[in-house]
């Protein structure tokens, strides 16, 4: 069973036992796919050229989430209430998909949510595995996402936090004061996506040379690469070749 509206032909078997019910409308429509074989000009004679499919991420889940995710959400609600923040103010949506829980947190609350997740005895997410970014140019107003993966060794749980910010105002508060390990991760996310983490001690480029223009892992940054010369032909770089999706 799947509440997702994507209609890809691949086996629809991601529903394990205990997959929660979802809301009717899909959240996070990230784009639209047209045609079937990757051609966008007159070359497609298959008849599928007029196909239009929306790409929508798994819809937010409603309670009960199933398993230990409910305990996590309850503990988080209680802890945030103790701080004076309502759960729904801080957390935009909860998605439980494929055995993993993703909390989409509003950027002004990410620091308090991280602090609560780290310090509350029922939560105790001591380890921040990493901060990474993702770029969804199709989602206007929420193009840049920062993803935080947390691990609780005491409770043997994982959770993912997702924070979205617009391209026009790419600022997210830094969590270095709660998880010092985020230092290099946030530098890398700035380097590759252009997300500025406010409050970071030294937000500079870490992987690319210091004077590199642009943010390479954004979708509007080309892969680069040169055509490869073979005996008798040249092959174009991968991002200018034909894609089937």
């Amino acid at each position, binding site marked *: 069973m799947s509440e997702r509206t994507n209609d890809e032909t691949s086996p629809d078997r991601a529903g394990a036992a205990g997959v929660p019910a979802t809301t009717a409308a899909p959240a996070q429509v990230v784009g639209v796919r047209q045609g079937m074989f990757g051609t966008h000009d007159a070359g497609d004679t298959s008849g599928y050229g007029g196909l239009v499919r929306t790409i929508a991420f798994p819809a937010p889940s409603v309670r009960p989430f199933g398993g230990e995710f409910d305990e996590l959400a309850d503990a988080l609600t209680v802890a945030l209430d103790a701080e004076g923040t309502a759960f729904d103010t801080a957390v935009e949506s909860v998605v439980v998909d494929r055995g993993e829980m993703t909390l989409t947190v509003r950027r002004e609350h990410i620091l308090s949510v991280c602090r609560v997740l780290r310090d509350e005895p029922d939560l105790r997410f001591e380890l921040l595995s990493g901060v990474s970014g993702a770029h969804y140019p199709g989602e206007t107003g929420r193009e840049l996402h920062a993803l935080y993966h947390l691990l609780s060794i005491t409770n043997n749980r994982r959770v993912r936090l997702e924070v979205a910010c617009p391209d026009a105002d790419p600022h997210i508060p830094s969590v270095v004061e709660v998880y010092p390990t985020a230092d290099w991760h946030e530098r890398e996310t700035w380097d590759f996506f252009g997300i500025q983490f406010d409050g970071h001690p030294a937000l500079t480029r870490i*992987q*690319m*040379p210091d004077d*590199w223009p642009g943010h*390479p892992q954004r979708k509007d*940054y*080309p*892969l*680069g*690469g*040169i055509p*490869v*010369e*073979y*005996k*008798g*032909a*040249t092959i174009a*770089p*991968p991002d200018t070749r034909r894609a089937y999706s």
Partner: protein
Amino acid sequence: MGIEEKLPSGLLLTSVETIAGYFRKGSLWPATFGLACCAIEMMTTGGPKYDLARFGMEVFRASPRQADLMIVAGRVSQKMAPVLRQIYDQMVEPKWVLAMGVCASSGGMFNNYAIVQGVDHIVPVDIYLPGCPPRPEMLINAILTLHDQIATTPLGVNRVAAAQAAEAAALVATPTSQMKGLLR
């Protein structure tokens, strides 16, 4: 050495070439320039099973000023390129460069913004060794081919003549992408 610059082309120069080539190839010291996966295979080639010491090359000099051969082992990123050039410049003549692996030879599988598509964009390469990573035996084969190349290098006026001949040949040669009809 200086002597080869002064000799005219002839038997004496050929003898100097032979002797100089023999000694140069017999004790070619590599500079450590291991970058990525190929570096591990290079270390293995210096290890006990595929011993590079039997070719006079066990001493991997840390300082480029004491090294003759720079084995560029691994992918060269845009950030590393100036460092590579600096190390090459710090080496003293005569020096040779071996591009080990496909990433050093041509950019390899990484045809993108971050990797220099072949170190011959930065330093002159004497021998290219494909492989991802090349086996230690392949590296030894490349080194021995380079040894042969060094042993027969023309010097002095012969070298100038050889360089001019090579350039003239390259100017009239067919470009790679125009070499058609080879499959027949």
